[in-house]
């Protein structure tokens, strides 16, 4: 039987901040085209994990490899150019720029071997921008400044900016933070489309259990900087270690 190749492998990663151990020998692997959710209580190390994966933090020990190449210690820009893109908890869009300019930025940065002339011109790939805006349902908002978008539209725009980098692995940190129920369902549908239609690998950090159920994907639960459970939404929901981690042990 043919198996999907592994795209990300995190091996025994530890991240210490003085006496605080944010990640404690964490292991995690993702297959290409997989959608996975990471759950865990506040302070369990989810965002630290994203910081390590994107090069914002250099792990104290352990290794991270992406598409077979070691990426631990590389700069965030170098890792982004290798194909890992990250969405921050607070939308990382540029409010003063239009929707088109926001998407044009990663397209410009993705130009690996720019000549002087291409750096001095501003000729965004209009077809690609239109395609991305259409994918997110923002076709009518191209010339609107990002500040004028609704919260849900801002989140969608940021996901489109990640897609414009041509990244293979998208890391989404709480993509539904501050959203209404309707907006949350729309984002869930968009994220499912990222894997089903575009073949992207997506790792999502999330707190909203209803959203996790809507995503209908494998779930990894973290606590105290390490993985304590893996499985479907229903499996982890009934796992005693997960229940203990969220609700505590009976006295």
């Amino acid at each position, binding site marked *: 039987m043919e198996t999907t190749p592994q795209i990300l492998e995190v091996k025994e990663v530890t991240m210490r901040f003085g006496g605080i151990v944010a990640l404690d020998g964490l292991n995690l692997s993702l297959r290409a085209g997989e959608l996975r959710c990471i759950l865990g209580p506040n302070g369990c190390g989810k965002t630290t994990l994203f910081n390590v994966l994107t090069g914002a933090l250099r792990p104290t020990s352990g290794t991270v490899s992406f598409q077979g190449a070691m990426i631990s210690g590389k*700069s965030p*820009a170098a890792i*982004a150019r290798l194909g890992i*893109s990250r969405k921050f908890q607070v939308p990382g869009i540029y409010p003063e720029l239009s929707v088109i300019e926001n998407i044009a930025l990663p397209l410009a940065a*993705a130009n690996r071997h720019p000549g002087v002339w291409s750096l001095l011109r*501003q000729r965004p790939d209009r077809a690609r921008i239109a395609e991305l805006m259409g994918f997110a349902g923002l076709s009518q908002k191209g010339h609107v400044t990002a500040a004028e978008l609704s919260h849900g539209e801002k989140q969608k725009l940021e996901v489109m900016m990640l897609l414009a980098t041509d990244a293979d692995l998208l890391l989404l940190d709480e993509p539904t933070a501050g959203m209404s129920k309707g907006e949350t369902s729309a984002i869930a549908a968009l994220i499912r489309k990222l894997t089903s239609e575009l073949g992207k690998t997506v790792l999502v950090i999330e707190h909203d259990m209803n959203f996790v159920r809507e995503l209908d994907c494998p779930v990894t639960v973290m606590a105290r900087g390490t993985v304590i459970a893996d499985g479907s939404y229903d499996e982890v929901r009934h796992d005693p270690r997960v229940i203990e981690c969220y609700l505590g042990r009976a006295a």
Partner: protein
Amino acid sequence: MELVLTIGLDALSFVLTLLLVTLGLVIVYGMMNVINMAHGELFLLGAYTLVAAQSAGLPFWAGVLLAMLVVGLAGLLIEELVIRHVYGRPIDTILATWGLSIAIKQLIIIVFGPAAISLTNPLPGSVSVLGIDYPAYRLVIMAVSAFLAATVYLVLFRTSIGLQIRSVIANRGMAGSLGVNTRLMDRGTFAVGAALAGIAGAVMAPIMSVDPQMGVGFLIPAFLAVLVGGLNSLLGAVIGAGIIGGASTTLSSGMAQATAQICVFVIAIVVIRLFPNGLSKGFR
């Protein structure tokens, strides 16, 4: 009427040159949060590069271009050897660039001596402007400064690299995660900021006394212009250079130099008191 026009043109000439120095400060601060105390010495380095080029027999305009290149490269070196090691530490940055300014000034004294040097005006004639004879070289300074300021604006707002530079200024973390090479942008921006100061120093050299203190004469008004116009804003640089440069030239024509400078400081203090974030950011 002739006097008013002459003062107006003198003010415009000073404002445009001051704008080049201010733009360098603003884009470096915007990009890296670095308050570059050595910016005046980069202006100085530009003037002395022109002195060296002229001594070596190079034509004037070749010397000006050389000054831009040499000071741009010096900026690249300073960013690589000093600035990048103190990123995110504002006090250390101020101390490091202050130390650097002293080192550059002393190096110039060792090489060229402490005495003032005069350069020959490359365009000694005058041109009739609206009925008055005005020095041709001052008009050239205005044209060069306006051209460079417009080029900086066009590069930042109408090109692909400008979009990337603005993205780093607005949100460094996000820009990095979108694949923008923030390190390259830092280096490039610092070098361009330095080159602007260098070319300003070179074009001003023939009408100023070139001496090791000349950088301070531009650094202080440039800092005042940044504070009055607003940090992190190109429009602010234009407004600030306009107010400080305009007031300085106009007042100097009607009163003693020292009194004029006191008045300029008073204007700056009043503006900063009423608009703490600078005129481009609005009333707070």
